[in-house]
């Protein structure tokens, strides 16, 4: 949240700055001034109108519609029929839905911490001044630029299939479990690996956070005889806790929305809907199957809203918890 807090005043300053510039220093006619102000407001809205139109037509409108569909039986062809809460009761009783919730929670609970720990670890290494620093930063950041793409997911599928590199490497060590993508229990870990591999984005944010920690705190601690771990635990971690909080929040929300990698690694076009025996059937994949394969748009809309509420709840819990572990500098 640290970034957001620092951003807000900055924007405010900008507007304060620019207002007097447009206004003549001493105006004898306040009415004309008002008129011009209104005109400028109008102009502002006019320039914003493409964005506003896009927001209303492409985001707000469909959201309202989907909220309505969530309470209807809607198959895309016939007019939606109001059925009250039936979609929700059917959803909660559906074992495939329960499975998708389990798979998703597992993915979030395992993938997010590993990714953040990897990001923080590498950020700590790269925070020290050394030769080729810029190169390493770029190299570790690169995967998160391309990681979400379809082509990487296809490559990932190939890496974790039978007789591919992962299978052969683990056989060298006498582990013969076959390719992960064919195993309903293992396929989710190939997705976890894919998300962990993209630790570059949170790493960059951690790096920025680490730069903010005042050097003198470390120097003082060193004088007092604190070791490396002690310094990390008692100085670094509390000092970067706002950044850590921001990363936890962002990555958690992001993880809940995993779709394309699960869809493609799990089979995608021409294969299983999402993994053998629904092994990588994450929430959004099941939503897609219900909506577009089974033409049950009402049910799919209901699922989308349940996901939204669930993510909102998780976010609320995280915000509530920050009182206990996130330290904002007093008076800053």
């Amino acid at each position, binding site marked *: 949240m640290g970034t957001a807090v620092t951003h807000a005043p900055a924007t405010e300053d900008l507007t304060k700055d620019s207002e007097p510039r447009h206004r003549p220093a001493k105006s004898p006619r306040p009415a004309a001034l008002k008129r011009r102000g209104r005109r400028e407001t109008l*102009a502002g809205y006019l320039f914003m109108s493409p964005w506003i139109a896009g927001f209303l037509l492409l985001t707000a409108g469909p959201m309202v519609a989907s909220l309505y569909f969530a309470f209807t039986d809607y198959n895309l*062809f016939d007019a939606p029929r109001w059925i009250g809460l039936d979609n929700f009761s059917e959803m909660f009783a559906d074992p495939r839905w329960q499975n998708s919730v389990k798979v998703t929670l597992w993915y979030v609970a395992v993938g997010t911490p590993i990714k953040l720990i990897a990001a923080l670890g590498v950020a700590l290494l790269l925070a020290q001044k050394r030769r080729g620093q810029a190169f390493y930063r770029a190299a570790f950041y690169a995967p998160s630029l391309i990681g979400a793409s379809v082509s990487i997911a296809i490559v990932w599928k190939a890496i974790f299939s*039978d007789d591919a590199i992962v299978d052969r490497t683990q056989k060298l060590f006498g582990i013969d479990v*076959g390719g992960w993508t064919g195993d309903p229990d293992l396929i989710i870990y190939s997705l976890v690996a894919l998300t962990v591999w993209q630790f570059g984005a949170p790493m960059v944010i951690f790096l920025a956070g680490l730069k903010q920690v005042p050097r003198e705190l470390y120097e003082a601690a060193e004088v007092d005889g604190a070791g490396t771990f002690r310094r990390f635990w008692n100085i670094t971690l509390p000092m970067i806790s706002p950044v850590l909080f921001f990363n936890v929040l962002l990555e958690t929300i992001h993880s809940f929305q995993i779709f394309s990698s699960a869809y493609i690694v799990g*089979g995608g*076009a*021409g294969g299983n809907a999402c993994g053998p*025996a629904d092994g990588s059937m994450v929430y959004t994949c099941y939503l897609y199957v219900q909506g577009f*394969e089974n033409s049950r748009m009402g049910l799919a809309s209901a699922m989308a809203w349940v996901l939204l509420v669930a993510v909102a709840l998780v976010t609320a819990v995280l915000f509530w918890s920050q009182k206990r572990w996130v330290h904002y500098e007093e008076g800053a």
Partner: protein
Amino acid sequence: MHQDKNVERRTVLKAAGASLAVAGLGATATACGGGSGSGDGTVTIRYAWWGAEDRAERIKKTIALFEKKYPKIKVKTDFQVYPDFWKKFNTQASGGNPPDVFQNAIGFLRKYDAKNVLLDLNAQVEAGNLSLDGFRAGLEKFGEVDGKLLGIPVGSNSMALVIDKPVYTKSGVKPEQGWTWDDFDAAMKKIRDKAGRAGDSGMYGVMYLYDLYLRQNGKAFFTEDGLGFTEADLKEWWTKAEKGIKQGIYADPKKVAQTKPKSAVAAELAAGEFTWDNFTVRYTSEGKSEYGLAPIPTTDGKKTGQYLGSLMLSASRRTQHPKEVAQFINFMVHEPEVAKIMGYDRGVPATQAQYDAFKPTDPVNKAIAEYEESLVAAGVLEPITPHPNGADICEAGFMRIAEELALGKRSVDDAVKQFFTESKTALGS
């Protein structure tokens, strides 16, 4: 100066506003202008199908032929692989913008008829734009639902056992018309022992094969409005499957799952697979071995339960050019040149004229022709099982739950229960 600047800004604003408005109008105009047809009487129709790249190449050649003969009709094409086809179609059709003419199959006729998507082609037959003469084996009736003509068959196919010929020979297995399930099970064991390969890729999840098995026993997968078998029937079928996987006579489901969409036979994971006979064309392009067709095993030594299936062409009820669409379908099913280009890619051509026009010379297509002729000669063909609205979802569920069973994620009892629950939902709504 100050004043001028303001004017300037206002002009800029107006210009910006105007261009926005124009852009907006333009967008609406193009959105509404999705319809086709222009001043000189040229009409454009959209044609969509599912299939692989090689089918697309053949179809495009036939379209070039059509456009030459009907210069006033232009055809825009679009194709997807099978599972993606209906997703795109559903989205387009629900938005009121389905393709004018598209590939279809029996399993979808009732479903899309119930959704008012399909055009009744009877009117076009009466108007003389579409001829129902010259179809083989009563195929012209295949697209009829409740007196409405909803699809015109382009080819016929039937279920078969596609086999890896060298593996069968090596194991000393010779399938013959009328062999029984006991013979088949013994053959599977023999192949596993002698060739070191699973005999079958996963027949327990093939809805169309289970349908044949049920038909051999006086039942069927579907009735007009529901399932035609009991939980006890399916329990027996899947108990056998569970045993076969453990014994290694059915291929390792983990490996089969990974090789998709490539077939397990072409990937050399299994010696055979129950599927549609025209799929040998595809397997031959996918795999390295030599592939042949074997008869369906029977329960009583005679009855296979087989029927002819068919790919069809259907028209959209919303098309603005029903006449041109009918002319297009008519050309595609009757023109002999089309058959020469398509071969048996979509099954054996539906009309006698097209059937006569393409005489296969390569072993793969020859085998398909011989197979279908042998079915006619053996007199085993029967009327097709009905496909109620929701049949496609039942089929997908059957395949998926069978896979879950095979992977050990479900017990037989659990799998059977789950399938019946899902089917009830799919067929009930």
